[in-house]
């Protein structure tokens, strides 16, 4: 698997979340999914895009713990490096 950088993942996650509805400038690392009105259905879609792009499989139990955009980015980067 090609190495992915945090910046690359962050860019892709923010771009994906923006396509789900929230304004791009609201999507910061500290923003919570609740604040962004991103629900569990959106997170499953995000996981599918991540899997398709980086080959990283995010399981349901992993996703449940995610509170902020930063949590998601760190989880994806961590899994990609593992």
């Amino acid at each position, binding site marked *: 698997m090609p190495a992915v950088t945090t910046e690359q993942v962050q860019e892709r996650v923010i771009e994906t979340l923006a*396509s*789900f*509805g929230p304004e791009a400038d609201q999507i910061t690392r500290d923003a919570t999914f609740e604040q962004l*009105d991103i629900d569990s*259905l959106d997170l*499953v*879609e995000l996981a*599918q895009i991540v*899997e*398709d792009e980086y080959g990283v499989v995010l399981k349901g139990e992993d996703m449940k713990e995610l509170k902020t955009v930063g949590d998601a980015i760190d989880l994806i980067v961590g899994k990609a490096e593992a």
Partner: protein
Amino acid sequence: MKRRVVITGLGAVTPLGVGASTLHERWASGVCGIADGAGKCDQFEPGDHLSVKEARRLDRFAQLTLASAAEALTGAGWDDELPYDPMRIGCVIATGIGGQATIEAQLDVMREKGPRMVSPLGIPMYMPNAAAAAVSMKYGLRGQAYGVVSACSSGAHAIGSAMRMIQYGDADAAVAGGSEAALTPFAFACFESMQALSPTGVSRPFDARRDGFVMGEGAGALVLEEAEAAKSRGATVFAEVAGYGSTSDAYHLTAPEPSGGPASGAIELALADAGITPDDVAYVNAHGTSTPLNDAAETAALKRALGDARARQIPVSSTKSAIGHLLGAAGAVEAIATIETLRTRVIPPTLGYEVPDPDCDLDYVPGEARPLLASNGAAPVALSNSFAFGGHNVTLVLRGAA
């Protein structure tokens, strides 16, 4: 005494444009919204009516519904605040098929990328109750909300169900409607395979040259309120849903029962429900699909129910001549066109009708629009018919404001 039900808001998105009055005005002035063998809602831009999130989570059929519901609720004066306890407001939105485009897109995803990549939004987007759920959620309607499915009668069944909900006392008001967005290659292939579609791409109901229906898309929504409650809040009343009748052919999967007997039963039930006679009917908005079988059977049904002589006196026109067949939306959109006819007192013509068929021998309003004349000087009354694959027959009796 039965509670009476009135209509205080109308909304439509059709191949003739966005808006209930637009539909009637353009049809009455002879505009046809059909192009290249389909009635597409070219003037509907999702971004004009929906947030990014709404558009992304709704199939086109539910998107069209939300746009039509917004017009209807605004027209009823419901946009700032609901005038009733939300638990006493129902929502019945019909569709024939549901999220057809979503099903096809997600099947492609599954075949190309495997089942793990199928969207979690697939089911909530294609379920036939998605439009009812969207309206209920957007406006906080907390009474009974559900979808109704009876192919091309769906929209009329939705209005009848909502009317009964209010009459029975389960609700004081309801949003009713129908929606369809099935202009996909697969749906065209399926209808073509059964030879239901016009090979010439022309919708000319009751004309001897008719050769099938033209598929269209769109949505219609109506706000229904209990009459006394509407009056006491000072609502503008467009029309009354005065009668509802529904029967089934129990005859054939797709062909109508040729004598028109069960269909005439629906008309008779609706007249009795409204407490009126054929002499009171000033206009019939026909199902008029432009298929050889439907238009002949509907003509037979009208003659049976209204009497041969009376049926020949009443102007009959088909909205499908202007927008094609909107399937599950047809009953709702055509009820709206009928109400606009009652409100404006202008009967739109059956566009393209030129060559008479001996099996279709009523007055189909050829050529151009004409004035609607109430037969006894009172508020005019009209029928709106809907018939469907599966043999479902529905007639609504609509009474204009005096």
